[in-house]
C-alpha cells in the first residue's frame, strides 16, 4: 500500500513538473513577443533621428548609438539562461548583479520577473542613449573636424 502511494505521488509530481514546464514556456513566449516589439520600437527612435541628417552626421550618430547601447536579444537571452545576475552584469549594473548572485536570483522570483522587465529596461536605456547621442552630436562632429584639420595639416 505504501509503495503504491509513493508511485501515485511520483506520478502527481511529474505531472506537476510538466504543467510547470508548459507554464514557463508560455511565459517565455510572451516575453519573446514583448522583446520583439520593443526591439522594433528602439530602432524606430534612432531611424527617425537619422532621417533629417547629412551622411557624415548620420554615420557618426548611428555609430555612437550602436556602440553605446546594449543588444536587447543578448540581454533577454542572459535573463532567461542566467537570470538577472547575468542580465544586469551585461547591462553594467554590477550592484544588482551581485545582489542577484547573493540571493540566488531572488530565490527564483526575480528570475521570472526579469524575463519581462529586462527587455523593457534595455529599451528605456536605448531611448536615453539615443537622446544623449543626439545631444552630443555637435560635439562629436566638432571633434571629428578638429581631428581632420590636424591630420590634414600633417600630410
Amino acid at each position: 500500500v505504501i509503495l503504491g502511494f509513493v508511485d501515485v505521488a511520483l506520478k502527481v509530481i511529474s505531472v506537476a513538473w510538466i504543467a510547470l514546464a508548459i507554464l514557463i514556456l508560455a511565459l517565455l513566449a510572451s516575453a519573446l513577443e514583448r522583446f520583439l516589439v520593443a526591439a522594433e520600437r528602439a530602432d524606430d527612435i534612432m531611424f527617425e533621428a537619422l532621417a533629417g541628417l547629412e551622411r557624415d552626421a548620420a554615420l557618426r550618430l548611428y555609430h555612437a548609438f550602436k556602440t553605446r547601447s546594449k543588444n536587447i536579444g543578448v540581454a533577454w537571452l542572459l535573463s532567461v539562461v542566467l537570470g538577472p545576475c547575468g542580465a544586469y552584469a551585461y547591462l553594467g549594473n554590477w550592484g544588482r548583479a551581485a545582489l542577484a548572485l547573493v540571493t540566488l536570483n531572488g530565490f527564483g522570483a526575480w528570475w521570472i520577473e526579469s524575463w519581462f522587465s529586462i527587455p523593457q529596461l534595455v529599451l528605456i536605456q536605448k531611448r536615453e542613449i539615443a537622446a544623449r547621442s543626439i545631444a552630443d552630436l555637435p560635439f562629436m562632429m566638432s571633434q571629428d573636424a578638429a581631428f581632420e584639420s590636424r591630420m590634414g595639416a600633417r600630410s
Partner: protein
Amino acid sequence: VIGDAIWVIAAAAGGLAWLLVGAIGLSLQSKRK
C-alpha cells in the same frame, strides 16, 4: 558590439550547465527505479 560575444558565450555555457543539471537529475531518477 565585439564585447557582446563574451556574453553570448557565457549564456551558451549557462545553457549547457542547465542541460547537465537536467541530465544528472534524469540519470539519478532512472537509477532510483
